[in-house]
């Protein structure tokens, strides 16, 4: 199989499924934001050390909840903080399970048992067992359903719309695009009250369907913008050739364009999943009762009684894991999606 197919100055590298578009075929916006790669020069040692220290400090809050999820509740509030997982370690100085975390007297008592700077703790999976006993699994499953269903519908509606706005691009395309993005500039606060009224009427309050309907509307404008930027990369010649062969618009979309911009569609899907999975405001407002999404599971720890940090941390760790992994895997595409296709 030939690695490269050349059509009128545009190279399609079939090994990677990526398009190498000549500079003059890109939109002005994309030309403005074109990038040529990282700097070649090496950093002096102090800068490298600074970078590492800054990176570790920024990551510390995340490291902290990940390890806290593996502690016992007493170790989670121990002073000094237990930062080193140490299998088999037996801690004799931790505070009792019954203290009040809002009390400074309890903190002083805990600090009094301080035996120097012993930062070790014995990791345990108890908290993970506890949160699954508290139905964390079904919240997780609900989040997964809401995220996947809303993203699938967004792509289904968004791909034809983005095609119409990029490749067919009539004179009204800029207005339609501007309208779409202006709905994202609207604070959700501006539509909350009617949503509550309408949802109560339609019995959509506290349902997953109700959230999915809104997550589609929330992500559709973003998806159309990102998809449009990827569609513009498709060389005109390829489309003209397909039309000469008598392809209908739907064939053109699903047999010619979609296979060519698959990485772009995947990146768009990732961005929609990040926003849907992480959404809290609408869920807290319209579906905070009963069996809802992962962020709502965490609501029970807003005014938690007694000790709950380790349980909270375990839920947080599991709750953020899918999106963090997705984001790490899609790092290269992240910036283009988050900037709505303006930055590559």
């Amino acid at each position: 199989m030939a690695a490269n197919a050349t059509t009128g100055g545009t190279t399609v590298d079939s090994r990677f499924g990526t398009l190498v578009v000549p500079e003059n075929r890109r939109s002005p916006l994309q030309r403005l934001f074109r990038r040529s790669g990282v700097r070649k020069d090496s950093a002096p040692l102090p800068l490298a050390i600074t970078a590492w220290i800054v990176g570790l400090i920024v990551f510390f809050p995340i490291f902290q909840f990940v390890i806290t999820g593996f502690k016992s509740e007493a170790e989670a509030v121990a002073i000094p903080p237990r930062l080193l997982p140490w299998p088999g370690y037996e801690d004799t100085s931790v505070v009792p399970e019954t203290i009040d975390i809002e009390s400074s007297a309890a903190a002083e008592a805990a600090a009094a048992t301080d035996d120097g700077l012993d930062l070790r703790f014995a990791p345990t999976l108890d908290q993970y067992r506890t949160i699954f006993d508290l139905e964390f699994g079904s919240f997780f499953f609900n989040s997964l359903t809401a995220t996947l269903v809303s993203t699938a519908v967004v792509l289904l509606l968004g791909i034809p719309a983005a095609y119409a706005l990029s490749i067919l691009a009539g004179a009204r395309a800029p207005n339609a695009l501007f309208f779409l993005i202006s709905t994202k500039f609207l604070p959700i606060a501006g539509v909350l009250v009617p949503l509550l009224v309408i949802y109560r009427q339609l019995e959509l309050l506290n349902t997953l369907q109700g959230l999915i309907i809104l997550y589609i509307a929330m992500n559709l404008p973003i998806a159309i913008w990102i998809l449009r930027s990827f569609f513009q990369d498709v060389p005109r010649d390829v489309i003209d050739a397909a039309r000469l062969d008598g392809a209908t618009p739907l064939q053109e979309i699903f047999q010619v364009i979609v296979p060519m911009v698959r990485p772009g569609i995947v990146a768009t899907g990732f961005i929609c999943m990040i926003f849907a999975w992480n959404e809290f405001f609408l869920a807290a407002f319209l579906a905070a009762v009963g069996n809802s999404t992962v962020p709502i599971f965490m609501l029970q720890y807003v005014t938690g009684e007694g000790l709950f940090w380790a349980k909270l941390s375990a839920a947080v760790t599991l709750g953020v894991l899918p999106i963090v992994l997705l984001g790490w895997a899609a790092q290269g595409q992240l910036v283009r999606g988050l900037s709505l296709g303006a930055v590559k």
Partner: protein
Amino acid sequence: MATISSSVPATRAPIARRSLVERIGVGRMLLYPAMLYVILVTQIPFVLTIYYSFRNYLLNRPDRDGWAGLANYQRLWDQVRDTDSAFFAALINTVVLTAGSVILAVIVGLFFAEIVNHKFPGRAIVRTLLITPFLIMPAAAALSWKNLLYNPNFGFLDWFTTTFIPTSPGPNWLGDYPLISIMIYLVWRWAPFMMLIFLAGMGSISEEVREAARMDGATAWEEFRSITLPHLRRFFMLGSLLGTVYIFQDFDPIYLMTQGGPGNESTNLSFLVYRTAVSGSNYGLASAIGVVTVILSIIAVTYLVRLLSKVFEGELSDGR
């Protein structure tokens, strides 16, 4: 209307061939499902918000339902002139929180971008560490910051400050400085986003220009100031526009970390709408606050978009 309508009149392009007419027809059919969906789900509720804002609509007093005229807005206007009121606090807090967080996130993000834009061992790992806060679910991040870091008795920051700065009383972060604490959290969350935008910008600076500057004996700081910074201008605009849009309407950290308190010290407009509707059961007043929030957001965004398009036009006419 809830949209910022463009002032450019919609002119139809002259249609030459029949096939083109057909194509435009098909284009509508492909575009309209998505457009209709968005209009239905976002615009109808907004029109209703405007309608409710002119009504007496108290959930616990249905007997008082009815046309209120401008009464809800009158109440807000009275509150604007009363510096102790919730609405006044929410207005100020929204502006301070948005402007402060966006400006700080841009500065910190620029710093992050500059340090990982050099080659050094583990660069990819550091970059990944720096991106991660933006991927963390806001509800999860806000709750773990509130407890594990900010708790005045058992939080990490309290232990850290009292241990390493023995004279420090160990401040009660969320109690004494709620707005600043939330801002620190927001900067932690948004600086990675800004970093990504700036990294894309820095990648598009040609190595020859940097090379030439170094040949002329430019120091690292001079190179950063006179090459990197000017080049990043439009990336600044883009980052601050998107940051403003999101942080302006942020709700999660306020609801989860402080519940708007103590008092109204960290209440912003989004949280006030929520509180007025859910705890206060006053749908009319909540709608009026929602309308004001939208108007303020439109003003801020229009201003930023104008600025942005001016920057873009300037760059485009440079003959690039």
